[in-house]
């Protein structure tokens, strides 16, 4: 049966196709956007804002550490309880919602794709098991490939072809999407309770984080990978780290990407834009970072913007979480993963009465307002690290309203007027720019625009968000409300949210990349890899790769070797 849908007279913001607030009909057939329809069901979007489904470039929504966060925070679980309905499963949690709530709440905000930002390869099955249980959203996950012993061995030997073969094997074995880097070298050092700065030698491995980042970027570009390397750099959360941040960006300057995109995506940049030398003279260096991004084309960023309130921080950056736990004295979970990575988790409260948190809060927004070209940045909260994803509408309303920012700043620690730039910035985002940083840029940076995501051109997936607001709306409160609960969310041509309620919860698809590598090179690499399994891994080589059963709704993207 042919399913047709017509979204009539909406005001459409579709940046990838250059559509900026045009009154336009969207025709849908069999889950795709088409030229015209014959006998459609009609949704009247007259006077309302219409955008492609949101694409989140970086969030922690599934896998071992997210679940460790849920498990050790029953007090967070009881915050978000909602009983099951005919359509929805029972919901729980605020900063670490259960998988069902994750799907429903994103869909209500008009999002239809989320990238799980960190998948420990050895536990990849876990990430996939949870993603299958997240309704509605299409998804993908990035395996961690930077602290791996194999990676460091090849960085040391300088053999980027073998490193590329290892990447190819790993991305395929984990059914992952690309190369994720988290505190390169530092997480391995953390297995001995140590950490690494950008140019420190990793204990026992005789390589530096800088060398790891550069080699991975080179190896990544040997394939037609849809996404660049995705980097959480060294010294996250340390005062004065902005210099490490720009030095990290410099590492990949001059490496040619396979297509028109940056060679590095630098994630949750708020946490990496700190001045000062201690927490006492801590200050914003968003200006310096924005300046770098404005002058260069090889780096894209996402914000990691702070939402005030309680949250659960979690990252593969084990030493960072330990430092945070030492500040708060709250509970702390750590889980180091053999030969590959680690993770830490601790709850955290961002308070507008605390000077450091106030500056952090300002930095995320400053980055968005000081970087001139919105195609270079994405809206994130590094969910749930700087705050839960459910806070995105707050950030949208801040970026769109100088008045709202001023009102908020007035309630916060007065340090905001001395050590942050935010109060002096007048820029306000328009809806087109919001659409760029929540779908256009993110889809393009991930290479998903070529696979139907993040736009509404003919042939695109029929993922549409219809917000219950007029394009002329300037009231920040109303903007926030509209972006929290859509009038309609349509996923693959099916209405999944209507008037802020989930009305259907179909399964999402998992996107994964298969890098294609010369078989001789692969064989050579496998000799080294099998030796690692033989002697050091605690699972066997043949039980390691993620079986097809874990990805029941696959979408494969092939990444050929660049000759």
């Amino acid at each position, binding site marked *: 049966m042919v399913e047709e849908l017509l979204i009539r007279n909406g005001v459409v913001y579709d940046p990838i196709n250059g559509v900026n607030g045009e009154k336009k009909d969207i025709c849908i057939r069999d889950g795709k956007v088409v030229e015209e329809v014959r006998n459609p069901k009609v949704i009247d979007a007259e006077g309302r804002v219409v955008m492609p489904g949101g694409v989140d470039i970086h969030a922690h929504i599934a896998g071992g550490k997210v679940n460790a966060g849920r498990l050790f925070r029953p007090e967070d679980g009881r915050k978000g309880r909602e*009983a099951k309905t005919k359509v929805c499963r029972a919901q729980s949690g605020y900063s670490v919602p259960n998988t069902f709530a994750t799907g429903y709440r994103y869909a209500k905000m008009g999002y239809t794709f989320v990238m799980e930002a960190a998948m420990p390869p050895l*536990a990849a099955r876990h990430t996939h098991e949870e993603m299958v249980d997240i309704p509605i959203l299409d998804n993908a996950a990035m395996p961690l490939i930077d602290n791996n012993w194999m990676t460091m061995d090849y960085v040391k030997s300088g053999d980027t072809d073998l490193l590329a073969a290892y990447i190819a094997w790993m991305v395929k074995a984990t059914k992952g999407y690309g190369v994720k880097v988290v505190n390169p070298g530092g997480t391995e050092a953390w297995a001995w309770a140590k950490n690494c700065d950008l140019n420190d030698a990793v204990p026992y491995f005789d390589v530096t984080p800088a060398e790891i980042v550069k080699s991975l970027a080179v190896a990544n570009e040997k394939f037609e990978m849809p996404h660049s390397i995705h980097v959480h750099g060294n010294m996250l959360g340390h005062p004065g780290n902005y210099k490490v941040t720009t030095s990290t960006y410099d590492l990949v300057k001059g490496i040619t990407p396979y297509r028109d995109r940056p060679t590095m995506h630098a994630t949750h940049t708020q946490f990496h834009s700190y001045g000062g030398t201690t927490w006492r003279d801590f200050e914003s260096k968003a200006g310096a970072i924005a300046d770098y991004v404005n002058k260069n084309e090889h780096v894209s960023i996402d914000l990691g913007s702070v939402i005030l309130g309680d949250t659960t921080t979690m990252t593969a950056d084990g030493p960072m979480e330990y430092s945070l736990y030492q500040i708060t004295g709250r509970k702390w979970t750590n889980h180091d993963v053999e030969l590959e990575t680690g993770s830490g988790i601790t709850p955290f409260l961002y308070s507008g009465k605390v000077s450091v948190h106030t500056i952090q809060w300002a930095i995320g927004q400053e980055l968005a307002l000081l970087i001139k070209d919105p195609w270079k940045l994405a809206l994130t909260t590094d969910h749930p690290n700087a705050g839960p994803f459910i806070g995105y509408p707050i950030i949208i309303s801040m970026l769109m309203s100088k008045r709202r920012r001023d009102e908020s700043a007035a309630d916060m620690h007065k340090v905001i007027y001395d050590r942050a730039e935010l109060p002096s910035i007048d820029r306000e985002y328009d809806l087109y720019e919001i659409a760029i940083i929540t779908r256009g840029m993110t889809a393009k940076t991930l290479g998903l625009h070529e696979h139907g995501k993040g736009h509404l051109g003919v042939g695109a997936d029929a993922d549409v968000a219809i917000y219950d607001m007029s394009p002329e709306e300037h009231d920040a409160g109303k903007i926030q409300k509209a972006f929290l609960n859509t009038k309609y969310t349509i996923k693959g041509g099916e209405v999944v949210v209507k008037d802020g309620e989930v009305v259907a919860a179909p399964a999402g698809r998992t996107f994964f990349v298969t890098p294609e590598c010369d078989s001789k090179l692969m064989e050579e690499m496998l000799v080294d890899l099998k030796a690692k399994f033989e002697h050091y891994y605690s699972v066997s080589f043949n039980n390691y790769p993620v079986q097809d059963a874990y990805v029941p709704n696959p979408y494969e993207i092939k990444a050929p070797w660049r000759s």
Partner: protein
Amino acid sequence: MVEITDVVCSLCGCVCDDIVVEVEDNKVTKVKGACAVGKSKLMGHGRIESPAIRENGELRDCSYDEAIKEAAEILAAARRPLLYGWSSTVCEADKVGIELAEEIGAVIDNTASVCHGPSVLAIQDVGLPSCTLGEVKNRADLVIYWGANPAAAHANHMKRYSYISKGYWTEEGKKNKKLIVVDVRKTATAKMADVFLQIEQGKDYLVFSALRALLYGYEDVVPEVVGGIPKKDLLETVKMMKEAKFGIIFFGMGVTHTRGRHNNIVNAIQTTRAAHTHTKFNIMPMRGHYNVAGINQVCTWETGYPFAVDLSRGYAWYNPGEQSATDLLIRRECDAALFIASDPGAHFPGESIRHLAKIPVIQIDPFPNPTTEFANVVIPTAISGIEAEGNVYRMDNIPIRLRKLVDTEYMADEEILERILEEVRAIKEKEGE
């Protein structure tokens, strides 16, 4: 004859995945690399042969259809049903179980509540600094077993992962390592130890606090003997902890089930945190059933909580001690119960068994056990890891896929539960009309 390599053992939380099995005429005929208990499980033994329903005190064989229908009717009618077990089956089945619990407003609990539930409660108080077993294998130079006796309960644990294993920085195996054992009696594991601390029953909490005080440098306040252990031995232990490059505490039911229960584990974790101010230190529970970690994982991502989850109001309310299976049964709260892949008949206190005798009980299991003797509906299943595949989580939360080795006529857990769920929905729809 077919040889199958890299077989995953579905016995204990070690989930050894390097077993070699020979299969002939659809039967496992030889097992290499497993411990004695694991081998016995893989070789197979007595089965529940047919679905059955109890009538006039006797089990009468019936079809799967009939047993499933009967089970669904019991569950749909219940006001406070309990669904319990889940640790010796695969995650795919656990997921359906949780959906069923939601549908009928049940309490869903798993065997963690009678083994490492206290560890979970402790983690909820202070978190868990831990790692995968391969980290221990490659790095640990100090291994502490506390209230755990792997030589008897997890036979391959020391060889594959800890004291005896060889890894990158531990090429010479136990020559590179020290072993401390803390227990109330000199167990087989204790006999191998460099240091054995014989602790008085129920005094673990005090000893952990003393170690913490010493690790933080307050020797002056600690008395001469704590929990039966002389202070000089505690000081020696602390010295070893501080001098280690990588220490690990493995703890077992000897700590979780003595006086202090989950607070003993809080204190064990606090001790680990204190040691971590000096060097790398980790801690890990010695999980029992092969997938008890898995049901905790699935239950957490689906409901928000790892065990003892009450879905009676349509959303999850979590409070072990209130909603854990034994508490519910001793308090006579339940009016129906489903047990899967577990044997409360053998492991629950007498008071709870007496209540079970009065209410309808459904059993889903490959093997007959004391629970079969009072179950009203008995549904046999395929054995996960031998006749059915699926995901499980090792004690360090590493997911591994069980392999299917032979064919079977028995239905898998997942399918049985799906069928019950379907029937329940049909009954409810009818009632709604």
